[in-house]
Structures are given as structure tokens and as C-alpha cells.
């Protein structure tokens, strides 16, 4: 079976753990609980009749208190940069993390997830911000772990992109 490592990166409280929990365990919790360190989950998906075992590295959120250890990104085939649609400041951290991924794992497929699409009316992030990311060549998917919008699609899509690479 093919094994692929995917890392979830982003600012704190953007929904990285929630996205994995939704995808792996079909669960969502309203309560925000900050991630300490790393949590690795696994799930097998079938892409083009091929079983792909995804190792999902849920890495603690980046902020002034916790910095992502670059070694966590090593060996990753895919990388989700998660942004909170309601907090435009999380784009800046997302962009910084993309630069780190480019240095540490240049062959890693980067997909940007703009999470919390269930409360789009509260979004700070503009269409121009999204276009900027797309113009840089990144696939951008709007997701909601809470409403289960496009979560499975996002994981399948990154798997497909990793396999095509």
C-alpha cells in the first residue's frame, strides 16, 4: 500500500484538528482545544483504484507561543495550509508557512484550505486574497469542518495531486 505523509499547518484555532477529526472520525466539537505538539492519525483512501494510506500530521498552531519545528514537515508529500476565513491575519501566517514548506519539502504538494465556510458572512478574507493565493499557483479549497463542507473532497484532492506528482 502506498503511504503518504500530509502535514496540517496554520495559525492557531483555524481548525486543523477539526478538519482531521471530521475526515478521520466523522466528528466535530464546538469546543476549541489547543493542540500541544503533534498528533498523527491515519486513514486509507482509494484513489484511481489504488489504496493510499494517509499519515495525517496534525501539528500545533503557529503563533508567538509555539513555533512549528521544521523537521515535522520533512518527508511530507502533501501539505495543507489552513486559513481561518474569519481572521485575515491567518493568511500572513499561512504564507510564511508555505515558504517554510518550500524550503524543507520542496516537492510537497501545497493545498490551501480556507476553513469556516459555514460562516461566510463573517469572513474577513476577500476574493482578492483568494485570487492572490491562486495566482501563486496554489489550489484553494473552501471548507467547513463544522458543516462537513468539502472536507472529504479536500483530502481526496490532495491525495490525487500527490499521486500525480
Amino acid at each position, binding site marked *: 500500500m502506498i503511504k503518504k505523509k500530509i502535514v496540517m499547518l496554520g495559525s492557531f*484555532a483555524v481548525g486543523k484538528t477539526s478538519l482531521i477529526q471530521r475526515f478521520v472520525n466523522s466528528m466535530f466539537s464546538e469546543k*476549541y*482545544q489547543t*493542540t*500541544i505538539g503533534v498528533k498523527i492519525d*491515519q486513514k486509507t483512501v482509494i484513489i484511481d483504484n489504488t489504496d493510499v494510506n494517509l499519515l495525517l500530521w496534525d501539528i500545533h498552531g503557529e503563533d508567538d507561543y509555539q513555533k512549528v519545528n521544521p*523537521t515535522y514537515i520533512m518527508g511530507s508529500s502533501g501539505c495543507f495550509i489552513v486559513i481561518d476565513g474569519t481572521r485575515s491575519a491567518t493568511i500572513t501566517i499561512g504564507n510564511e508557512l508555505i515558504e517554510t514548506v518550500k524550503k524543507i519539502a520542496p516537492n510537497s504538494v501545497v493545498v490551501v484550505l480556507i476553513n469556516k465556510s459555514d460562516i461566510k458572512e463573517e469572513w474577513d478574507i476577500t476574493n482578492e486574497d483568494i485570487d492572490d493565493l491562486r495566482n501563486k499557483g496554489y489550489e484553494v479549497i473552501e471548507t467547513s469542518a463544522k458543516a462537513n463542507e468539502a472536507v472529504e473532497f479536500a483530502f481526496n484532492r490532495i491525495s490525487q495531486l500527490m499521486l500525480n506528482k
Partner: protein
Amino acid sequence: MLESLPQDIIKYLVDELPPFTGILIVKADEDGNVIDMYGPHKDYLRDKPEFGEKIHEYVPALYSMIPPLVSPMVLNKIKSNNSVYADIHLVEGEHNEYWVFFVDQNREAKSIRQIIQKINADRLRIESDKTKVQTNISSPFSVFDYLNLKVENNNKSIINSNIPPWFRILAPKYSENDSISISEVFPYFEVFFIEADEFWAKKENGKIKSGIWTETLTKGEDIALSAYAVFYNNQKYILIKPEEEVDKEQISLQLARDQKLAYEKLEKTEKKLKKLLEYKDKFVSIVSHDLRSPVAAVLGIADMLVNDKKELSKLDEFYIEMIHSIKDEMLRLLDYNDKLYHWSNLELGNFEVIKDKASLKKIISTAHRTAKKRLDAKNISFSTNLEDDIEIEVDLTLFLQVLNNLLANAIKFTPENGSVAIVVTDSPSLQITVVDSGVGMPKKLSENIFSGFARNSSMGTDGEKGTGLGLGIVKKIIDGHGFTITVESETGKGSQFIIGIEK
């Protein structure tokens, strides 16, 4: 003994141990024989340790612990005599000596006793459910929750300790002395081995610590773990243990982040509110501007009718009064509308204070002239104490508007035959006070008087109607100048509006 403590041990004492005077320090040689001692041994040990005796004779938990595999090593909450729980720190000194620190944990131990009891009960239950495993007492880690792995290569290690309960749940197929691929059980090691290999390549005794990672024990129950990569006597080890401090760290981090999120939310709401207020002001500004033309047109017609004596003579008195009323009300509406327009533009910041030197005497005189008609109508006297002129730096048009508004306000609330004055004091700072002998106002009203939306704005003593916006406009202009304005008033005793100008 304290004088002879080596620098590295003093540093450890200062950095790692709580500022606690009751620490017992025992120095031992590499065989665990007591060499020296300092501190209240009675607080921790039943008998006073004799020099040359093994330390484990006094503290059985220290059996085979000296020399420790890792330095420093901390044994948490060990019962060192019948009643005292202590954290025991084992630290290797520079000259092959070992330092044992006993730190009283009794208070904390009492508080967590119930929790520990519950954990132990759960463990016992788990143990009884599993096949009994023979314990490996030769390993110094057998009493801990450490999983000790002797590393042969990154794909093969040997389990070198008994199986801690948490590992038994996580990977039940493994027993002591089994061969194990650490990365397979803990994918986290895929990255930690990179750091560990780098460290082991130096072939120096010591250890490095990993980050924290989380494993799922059972559904909904996670365990936070951390690992040490150890190099000792040419052998590589991996020690994995539950991370006890993670809860504390999580709580403080969670608090900090919750606070940051709340702050971000507040900032966002403030931005939204400011935007809404700006919309409101723009809306009011546009509406009041556009209303001016139709209001002025109706006023023009009313004025024409009032002055058309030929047509008026055809009407009876009631209708003539009606036409006069239309004119008066339209005038009031126009005044209100103008003030609204002015107010909203001040709120939007659409004004600039251009200060220039001006004669205060001249400003007061102009304001008096403007108010004269109203003063005379109510037979109100006007006075000022200003004899020698003072030069002030103001925006003449705007400041004159301030005095006009304050005087109009004073006249409005002063009954017939009353008095209004502008009092100027020049020491210690310049103050211009508009004083009236009017009806005054209660404290509650005066506190809100400059908001521009004074709901209790009442009619004047002669039935004069007001907009409630005048004093709001005054405050905006005064603020724009960098001056201050305050009000002192009491019901029935008149009011004083005091403008403060720093020299």
C-alpha cells in the same frame, strides 16, 4: 557543605528547584555511598544517613539508581518516609560524584491523592484484564512509566524495560525483550530519529528530548508522550514517557490563545462599529444636505405669503396665524437641518481647525451682537469682566460658533429679566465662562449634555425649542482646538459653561 557546592550544582539548584529552604541535599559516590549531607534529614528520612552507607538503605526507591542513566533524573512524588512525599532529583556532578536533592511535595501530594488513587485503581483494573507479565527488575526504569528501548538501528530496537500500562493499551502485541520498529508504532519517530541520529553520531554520553506528540489510547482518550534519545556507554537508547506537564502547558496556552481570540473578535467588532457609525454620519450628512433645498423652498413660499399684505387681508386671523406658524416651524426645521448637517460633518472629521491669533474682546463683542436680539426679547442683561484684551489662538469662525451656541443656550434657559455674562480669568490658565442666572439642570442631565443627543433637551423658559445638537457641536469644535469644556449647574441656580485654554 554549602560552601563547597560546585558551580554546576548551584546552577541546578537555582534554575530547577523551587525557592524552598527545606531541601535535603545528599552527596554520594558512584556506588551510591553517602559522602556528605546538608539539610533537614528528619523531614525526609527516618534515620540520619551515615557516611559510607548506601543511600538506598535509607530510601529504597534509590536502589540501583546511582549512577542514574540520565542526568538530571527526577523521581516524582516518592514517599521517602511514612508521611512525606518528595521529588528526588539525581544530578551527576563533574567529579564522578552524585547529588541527591529531596524536595518536599507533601502539600501537592495531598491535593492530588484522590486523583492518583483513581488512576491506580484504573491501572489495577487494566492489569488484571491482561496476562501477567514478569517484571524486569534489573532495569532502572522498571518503576516508572518509561518505555525503555535499546536501539540497534532505526528499524529495530529491543524493549528493555517492563511494559508500562499506557504502552500495553497502545500496542498490546508487544512484551519485554521483543524486537520493535519504533517508527511503525510511533510514526512521530520518523522525524525524531533525524535529530537522534545526529546526536548519537557524536558518541558522547548524554540525551536530547523530543517534542510532544499525542497517541490515542482508546476512543476519546489520548495520551501525550515525549521521548529522550540517550547515549550511554556506547549504547543508544530511546526512552518514551507520558508527558505529565502537558495539561498545565495546555491550560496556560489555551488561556493565552482564548484571550487572543477574544481580543481579535473585539477589534473586529470595533472596526465594524466604526464603519457603521461612519455610514450613519454619511447618511445623515447626505439626507440633511438634500433636505435643505425643499425646506428652503417651502420657507420661501411661507415668507412670500407672510409679506403679501394684499392676499393676507383676504384671510381671517386664524389662517394668518397658521401661515406665520408654517414660516416659524420651517425656520426651525431649517436650523435643525443645518445643525444636523454640521454635526455629521464634524463626526466624519470633515473639518479642519485653522488657528490664527485673534482678539478675545472682539470675539465676545461679535457674539454679544449676534445674541442681542434674543437678549432684548427677554430683557436679559449681558456683561463681561474682560477689560484688557487678550490674544488667543483659535479658528475664528468655529470659535465664534461656540460662543454663539453657548450664549443662545444661556438665553434659552434664562427667564425674563435674568442675566448672562462671559467671565474671563487669565490665571493660572485661561478660562472663558458663560454664566447664566437661568433654571440650571440636574446632575444627570449635565453629565450627558455634550453627547449631541441629549434626550432631555427641553424647551426654553419662553417656549424656545431646541435641537439638542448645539452643545454636541460645541464639544466637537472645542476638542478640535485641543481645549476643554465643562459644565457646572444646579437646578434653579443657573449654569456655567467653562472653556479651558492651556497657555
